[in-house]
């Protein structure tokens, strides 16, 4: 498909945003916008949208990929990617006051409203897997493309062993009453747990482990998959427990783990549900073994919670896998500088895209969508297909053919809409901050290798 040249985008954004001084270093010469020539005579309006949790407890995460998606649209407009057609962008918030953050019901309502607008050709989002569960059927019924920057639940796209677990209970087939219109640019928890198992057994050299989970779809799923792959690697799970997110102390289970000789603790879940508190209680119990978590643990709150106990530097030496540290990728450097230039006037931390691991994912997801739309227009003689539904179907078909080089590197989608660009970075808390150690990739037969 269309492979944009980085220089085009950055020059375009400079022109569009009038921030000449901030990023005037790009040098790649380009003459014209990719594919725009054939569609200069395009007329009509095309709308793209993002759906993220922007307020409440998720205000620290969701706005970043939303701003990144908006930046992609701004650049496409400056770049005349849609030729003579008008490109509009709508930002939806799936948070509610009631949930103090992402709310699946609000997500479904947002997609329903967007689908009712015949000019909407695709949505970047959602951020949370639980919201995806309620949005995917709506998008599928309306043939609307949905590209998530951050959903890692494997059962959203394919049936794996854990989908039938009572805690997760996701019937993948029932999510798609219509065509399969859902894609994601982030690898799923299957890959993450394979890497977690490898890290626990081969990197941390823990041959016995005690596993916690937070009883939620993400955490429970990750823990179950982790145990499966950890055992396959040769490790022994000495015990496991599912505790509700409201649990305030973990000392009872840690004493059990200690008595069973666990050499490490794995936590499947989020910091809000106790990942940092487990680490805090390990300090009180005098347990000098590593704690490993998934991307739900890799945040500042983990460090705050872990250090809140009697040992004020207890967080040091904790491990978590998370989205690849894209700030280290050469391909993302341009994007982050463009982001910083475009949003210099936003209050911190939103003026710095590197403050959130999923920012670049929002940017690539929107660019992939925009280029799919562009290729449909080009393929249709520069004009939008006559019916909205045909247009949407064509966009989904174009998305399947995606071969895009963006901030994240090279992205293509498999038959389930999952990205083939997998990889997770192992982070370690050092002097009170998460620091990337290595990035691991996993192939289709489950072999883990160091990527960078």
């Amino acid at each position, binding site marked *: 498909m269309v492979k944009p040249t980085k220089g085009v985008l950055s020059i375009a954004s400079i022109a569009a945003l009038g921030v000449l001084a901030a990023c005037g270093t790009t040098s790649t010469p380009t003459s014209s916008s990719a594919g725009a020539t054939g569609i200069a005579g395009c007329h009509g309006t095309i709308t793209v949208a993002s759906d993220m949790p922007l307020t*409440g*407890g998720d205000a620290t995460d969701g706005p970043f990929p939303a701003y990144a998606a908006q930046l992609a649209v701004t650049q496409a407009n400056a770049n005349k990617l849609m030729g003579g057609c008008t490109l509009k962008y709508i930002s939806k918030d799936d948070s509610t006051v009631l949930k*103090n*953050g992402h709310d699946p019901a609000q997500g479904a309502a947002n997609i329903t409203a967007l689908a009712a607008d015949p000019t909407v050709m695709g949505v970047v989002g959602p951020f949370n897997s639980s919201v995806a569960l309620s949005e995917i059927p709506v998008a599928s019924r309306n043939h609307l493309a949905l590209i998530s920057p951050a959903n890692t639940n494997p059962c959203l796209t394919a049936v794996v062993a854990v989908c039938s677990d009572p805690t997760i209970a996701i019937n993948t087939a029932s999510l798609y009453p219509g065509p399969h219109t859902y894609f994601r640019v982030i690898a799923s928890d299957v890959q993450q747990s394979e890497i977690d198992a490898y890290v626990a057994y081969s990197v941390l050299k823990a041959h016995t482990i005690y596993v916690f989970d937070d*009883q939620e779809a993400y955490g429970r799923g990750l823990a179950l998959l982790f145990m499966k792959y950890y055992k396959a690697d040769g490790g022994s799970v000495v015990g496991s*427990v*599912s*505790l*509700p997110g*409201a*649990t*305030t*102390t973990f*000392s*009872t*289970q840690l*004493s*059990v783990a*200690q*008595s*069973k000789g666990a050499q490490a603790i794995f936590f499947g879940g989020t910091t*809000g549900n106790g990942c*940092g*508190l487990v680490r*805090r209680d390990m300090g*009180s*119990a*005098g347990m000098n073994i590593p704690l490993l978590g998934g991307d739900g643990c890799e945040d500042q*709150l983990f460090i*705050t*919670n872990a*250090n*809140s*106990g*009697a040992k*004020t530097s207890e967080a040091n030496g904790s491990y978590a896998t998370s989205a690849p540290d894209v700030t280290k990728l050469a391909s993302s450097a341009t994007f982050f500088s463009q982001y910083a230039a475009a949003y210099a006037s936003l209050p911190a931390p939103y003026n710095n895209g590197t403050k959130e691991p999923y920012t670049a994912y929002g940017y690539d997801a929107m660019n992939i969508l925009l280029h799919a739309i562009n290729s449909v227009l080009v393929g249709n003689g520069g004009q939008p297909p006559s019916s909205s539904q045909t247009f949407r179907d064509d966009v989904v078909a174009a998305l399947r053919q995606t071969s895009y080089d963006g901030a994240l590197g090279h992205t293509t989608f498999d038959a389930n809409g999952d990205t083939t660009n997998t990889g997770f970075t192992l982070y370690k808390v050092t002097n009170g901050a998460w620091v990337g150690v290595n990035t691991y990739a996993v192939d289709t037969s489950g072999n883990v290798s160091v990527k960078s």
Partner: protein
Amino acid sequence: MSDQSGTPGAAPGGTGGRTGAVTLVDQGNLGPRTSEGSSFFGAVTPIFRFLYSLISKNFGALLLALIVLSIFGTFLQGGATLMGNQIKNALVLGAIYALVAIGYTMVYGIIELINFAHGDVFTVSGFYAIFIANTLHLNSLATSSFGGLLLALAIVFPLSMIAAGLTGMAIEFVAYRRLRDAPRLAPLITAIGVSFLIEGVMLVREGPDYVTTGQASWINGTAFTIGKVAVGYTDLFVVGTALLLMFALGAFVQRTRLGKAMRSTAQDRTAALLCGIDINRTISATFFIGSALAAAAAVIYSINYGDVKWNIGFRLGIIAFTAAVLGGIGNIVGAGVGGFLIGLIYVFGGSLIGGAWSEALIFAILVLILTFRPVGLFGVEVTTRA
């Protein structure tokens, strides 16, 4: 408020005037049925009745046996080290439950209201303690020397307790006083309302995440080691302070004029009024003391765990309420003992059959108590009234 207390029916003369109202613990309906329709049930009813009375009379012994068995089971599972660690965990948890349970039991004893806002008073007190410690720079004082620690404790405990006590009095004055003679359901509903109100205010003010108190570093280090079980100074502090406060309260209720007024108001409000006791003042004092103990529990919690969150008091409150029912609601000694028993059940249940069952176990116990021994372990025999 000791043995007889305000449990409905425990002092039939005192509460007789209000037995028509809705009560949570309405023992009148909980005894064995006397008439059965079918002959089969007619035949087995005596067996059921016998079993019921057997369990009901020996409830405490059965529960104790269960706890001892689970401690022994833990010993078989993980040896003396695991058993010792879990006993330590249980006592620490139990001490906090006990202090919170006393607030529930005192309020229930005197006005027969389950003060659902009590758990949230606990949480608010945690934030009071943070505010006081930060404003007066107690964190650096407490970690400077042993004398500094004592001074910091001597400042943070009374100030948080007074602040919480005043909060409790304000809640009583605003939400419960005017409803004192309304049907029992009315103050129960306002209690739930106050609980949500407090939680909402804390969520907005303090945010959705855990807030670090900075007090976990006040007390540090291992006091002594038994086998491989390291007992920290914090563990001793938690349990010791809780016991000290409970004995102080016991002495206060037994020995002082106000304590006597509280006991008589609990037994019979009208008679107490006739004897010249200022009912409003007595009830306010009860709320003050109950809330102050919740604040003490919150300070202990803050020093032990180091984090407070806007909604931690909710679950903790319900579990502490179960402890109060277990001990016999209205009975102060019962609430204290109940708190420690619930701590043991929570920890050893969680250790033996998995932590996911801890809370289910606690509430199963609540159902069993209400079925078999609604007056609790330290109340009077249910059969004398059934």
